[in-house]
């Protein structure tokens, strides 16, 4: 009934929004699956069953393997990207939620929410190499670009712990606002950005001095204060822009990463949770847990271009070739 106005219009619209040759992987926390979305058509091409409560999701540095924390099965599943099916299981310690991969792809550091530890996993062997005791309910994880420092946030302790990757011990703690949920290193390794869900703020930490240098807060006209719950965070490689998912506020905050000023709020789906850039950082994908979809943000234009329905309660997102 509703058809395209003119083929010419379609062509022009297609030119206005360059299609990306990439694949998006979304972990569906309640759907117990990973949705595979084609970046060009933005259609779900496959749904891979992975196990109970998949959350943290990352691609190996070579893009061949997809790792998914399957929290209620207490493992990390390895998906062969070419075959699009689960091929291996890694020991991760109990209830893994988020994790990071060392730059060479050989190690995984996984936060064990129920066990107050970070488990170090040998990816090749699939076994745990050791554990680091951290604060209560560890969740957000980040790794410095050189792989020497691992950062974990503990939700109940409200701390960002700095772990020396070689010595496997905590070398510093930074107190941040209530319930820190996610963290990320800037590309130059000089700063750590950590979000606080209940504190409704983002702490920018000097990674060398291990001190909070800026606390960013949010104020959205027409949105109640308690709905602003920052979770996922990403900083662009050029260090110019930062994006923060604001949970039930259904917005992604765009922050000038130099001045720390919030530039705008982009409306996405309900309870926006995690974020991921594509390879050239022209697009940012968000998972929207309550509306069961992902939103696609055109980064140069700072506009939300589309929302695509995936599985039940999408949690994390990873983008590969």
């Amino acid at each position, binding site marked *: 009934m*509703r058809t*395209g*106005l003119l083929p010419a219009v379609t062509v*022009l619209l297609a030119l*206005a929004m360059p299609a990306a040759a990439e694949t998006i992987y979304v972990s569906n926390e309640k759907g117990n699956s990973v949705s595979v979305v084609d970046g060009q058509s933005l259609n779900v091409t496959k749904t891979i069953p992975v196990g109970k409560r998949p959350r943290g999701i990352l691609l190996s540095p070579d893009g061949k393997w997809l790792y998914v924390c399957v929290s209620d099965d207490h493992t990390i599943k390895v998906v062969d990207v070419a075959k699009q099916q689960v091929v291996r299981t890694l020991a991760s310690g109990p209830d893994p939620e988020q994790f990071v991969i060392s730059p060479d792809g050989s190690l995984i550091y996984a936060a064990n929410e129920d066990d107050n530890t970070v488990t170090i996993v040998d990816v090749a062997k699939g076994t745990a190499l050791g554990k680091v005791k951290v604060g209560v309910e560890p969740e957000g994880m980040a790794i410095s670009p050189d792989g020497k420092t691992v950062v974990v946030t503990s939700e109940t302790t409200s701390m960002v712990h700095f772990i020396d990757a070689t010595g496997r011990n905590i070398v510093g703690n930074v107190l941040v606002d209530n319930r820190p949920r996610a963290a990320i290193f800037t590309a130059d390794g000089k700063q750590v950005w950590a979000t606080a869900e209940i504190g409704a703020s983002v702490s920018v930490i000097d990674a060398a001095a291990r001190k909070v240098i800026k606390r960013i807060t949010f104020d959205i006209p027409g949105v109640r204060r308690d709905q602003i719950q920052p979770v996922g965070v990403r900083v662009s490689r050029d260090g110019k822009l930062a994006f923060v998912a604001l949970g039930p506020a259904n917005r992604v905050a765009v922050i000038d990463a130099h001045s720390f000023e919030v530039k705008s709020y982009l*409306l*996405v*789906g309900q309870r926006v949770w995690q974020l991921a850039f594509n390879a050239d950082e022209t697009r940012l994908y968000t998972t929207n847990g309550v509306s069961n979809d992902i939103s696609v943000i055109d980064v140069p234009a700072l506009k*939300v*271009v589309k929302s695509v329905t995936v599985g039940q309660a999408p949690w994390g997102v990873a983008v590969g070739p």
Partner: protein
Amino acid sequence: MIAAYLHCLRGIIVREGLRFVHQRERFVSALVRPLVWLFIFAAGFRAVLGVSVMPPYDTYVLYEVYIVPGLVAMIQLFNGMQSSLSIVYDREMGSMKTLLISPLPRWYLLVCKLLAGVTVSVLQAYVFLAVAWFWGVQPPLLGYLAVLPALILSGLMLGALGLLLSSFIKQLENFAGVMNFVIFPMFFASSALYPLWRVRESSPLLADICAVNPFTQAVELIRFALYGQFDLVACLGLAGYLVLFLACAIIGYDPARGLMERRGAPG
């Protein structure tokens, strides 16, 4: 003969244009009305009325983005009523007689009057869209081009409705009734302020009424066109209502059969 027709068309459009230019208040008020809705009403309701992903939108939109097509149609609705008001005024003042003694057929005069009104309403709609652009409602640029035929069609339909109503109204004072019985019900029982699926949640009957409302067809055709898409159902609906209203208006103004003469025009 064609020259006479063109001369007549030109005369009516120029007269309507002059009226438009000379009455700056009219232009400002035509613009203020939707802007009040956009700046105040939409701001107040942006948190309350969430809008889900639905065609023609590809993603979530703020409430002010949702209501812009409805407000564009509102401009045209008021414009249609305004021109019907001016016909009643012309009739009361006697300047209508000058027009009606023209040798050209009555239906042609009415269509000219209609075209003149549509020209003005399309101009008003574009000025409003320009203001909305600065308010952050920014459809794709192509949408501004695609919306032109939609605006013309919806303007014709709402103008024809105005003509039809003016054939019923004997005196200027009765115009308040038009507000109560036509403008308000048409505007509120439509998809202008809230999507139909939301209306259906509370009352399926009301949603059905909204769905057949001519004003809903206008709003949806404009909404889809603004985002580079074509809503066939709304287009056919609009065209149908246009033919119906225009035919009735022409009959209404026909001195042999019309209601106007039978009731006795004042003055």
